[in-house]
């Protein structure tokens, strides 16, 4: 188990490339698949890929932004409360 993980960690560049190629493969595969769905966005090519990118970006930026703005406090903030 540990040895398999060592191989993966050593070859992390290849793992990254395989992941990126897989994403490309998903976009190509989508061209071949018939979309079902009640709403327009469910039938639009690449909608969920774009939603994944935009959604992740918005969530990361919004959560970190609000954390730095006022949500985050020192670990002893509440004291004994």
């Amino acid at each position, binding site marked *: 188990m540990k040895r398999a993980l060592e191989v993966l960690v050593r070859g992390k560049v290849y793992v990254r490339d395989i992941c990126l190629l897989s994403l490309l493969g*998903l976009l190509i595969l989508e061209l071949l698949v018939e979309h079902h769905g009640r709403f327009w966005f469910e039938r639009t090519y690449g909608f969920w890929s774009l939603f994944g990118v935009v959604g992740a970006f918005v969530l990361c930026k919004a959560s970190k932004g609000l954390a730095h703005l006022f949500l985050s406090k020192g670990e002893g903030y509440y004291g004994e409360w």
Partner: protein
Amino acid sequence: MVSGEFIHPGFVFLLGSLLIPLLKGWLKKAYLLAIAALSIALVATMPEGTYWHVDWLGVRMVLGRVDKLSLCFLWVFTIMAFLGVLYGLHRSEDGHHVAAFWYIGSSLGAVLAGDYLSLFTFWELMACSSVFLIWYRRRPESIRAGFRYLMVHIFGGLCLFFGMIFRYWQVGDFAFGPIPSGTAGVSDYLILSGFALNAAVVPLHAWLPDAYPEATVEGAVLLSAFTTKTAVYTLARAFSGYEVLALLGTLMAVYGVFYALIENDMRRVLAYHIVSQVGYMVAGVGIGTALTINGACSHAFAHIIYKGLLFMGAGAVLYRTGTCKLSELGGLWRWMPWTMLFYIIGAVSISGFPLFSGFVSKNMTVSGAFEAGRPFLGIFMELAAIGTFLSVGLKVTAFAFFGEGGKEVKEAPWNMLLAMALASGICLFIGIYPHALYRLLPFEVEYHPYEISKVLEVLQLLGFSGLVFFILKEKLRPEPKINLDLDFSYRMLTKYFMAFDRRVIALLDYLWGEVWKVVGIRGLYGGAEASDSFDRKAIDGVVDGMAYGVRTIGDRARRLQWGSLQGYIALSTAIALLALILFALE
């Protein structure tokens, strides 16, 4: 405990706990596992129907209502109980095992309850027993968190209590069943609030990420399973189709992942994900179609197992390293590879990857939202799915198990690994063979999770959000901080009240003490002296005067009796003569 073919699994745990302190070593461990295994066997052979009708206080209680809905939850509760007991087998304190058994037993009792009175009894028992799983960590923070947890749950219990009493006045019974949303009144919304608090519905959720990360390693695994899912069961039983639940559930789903992205404590990340995942279930109940209610139940089933698995993984890290803070962890793949593997299986399950349990359950609710014509709810649930993968799937794995830093530790104990392996197996089994789960659902609905377009949609959604994570990875690096949530309100309220007490009330108390010393004490002394004087001069004077009078009369009478017979005769003769003279003179 036995009624025809029905044996109450909750009472097996409650009564079974009594023998725990009497057993030692391997016998005790075997006994703990045997009780949990027995409960699974009881559910497997449990026939549908109502059992255990008890008349108490003039009310008819039903302790055993078995139908499709309760059976679905009983199955997963007993399986999780077995996994939780196995995971905590190394724990030496009997009290911890007893508290765990009472918590599990009362949760099963709540699911089987057919009336509000028995439901309320088990509901309160759950709160009172589960708090010990927090207190047994024995840290000052845990003791305080436990008290906050208890106070919040007492408040929720009171909402349920007053709701059910008002409802009894209105309808004349305690029957616990569906309440159509059009007929709901104040009493029903009070009951709903009590259930919603236990389900951690925003804004009544803050107790959960406050308390669960402070629980014991083994206790948190059980806590993650029972309280919120019992509440989901009660909501599904009574309040399906309530719009407020559809909206708040979706809000919960996004709210939880939002906090999970910025939290530093691994178990707090997971706690916020309970809020998020229960959000899907609450929304499913709120939308109220057969597909979404099935989605809520199947997601509860899958969630209990993978969330238990994730808490087991985080607990194993805490057990071995002494911390769950991502800012202090790193590189654990070298030392705890099996824990990491099982954690990742839980993480991909919760993220909803195909072939894992979350995929077949979560998408049922999301598809149900779209099919019910609620696209906005569906879209926000998909947004929450992105956040889930980013935080539980990628953030925790990247910063705790990979990366640099951390310390050399041993792999988790065998019982923890075995429990994690079994839970991982269930996640995979449900993901690969979803109809085993779908067979347990309350409604007969045709749903096929593995349509190629759905699989593709999920892979794209998660794959591309993962890409963003690796671009923003350094920005998402956890910081050793805490984040304010709504527990701020009651924690700071208490803090300010105590500060007010120390400064203002204590000052007033001091001033009053001084005034009392000057005016009060002196007045008291003066009053006491006056009273003393009155007592001595007036009261004593009267009493003493009477005493002196009696004594004087007595003394005189004594002197008349000097003991000489001649004297008495002479005196009598003199008195008689005096009387005759007086008579003659008249």
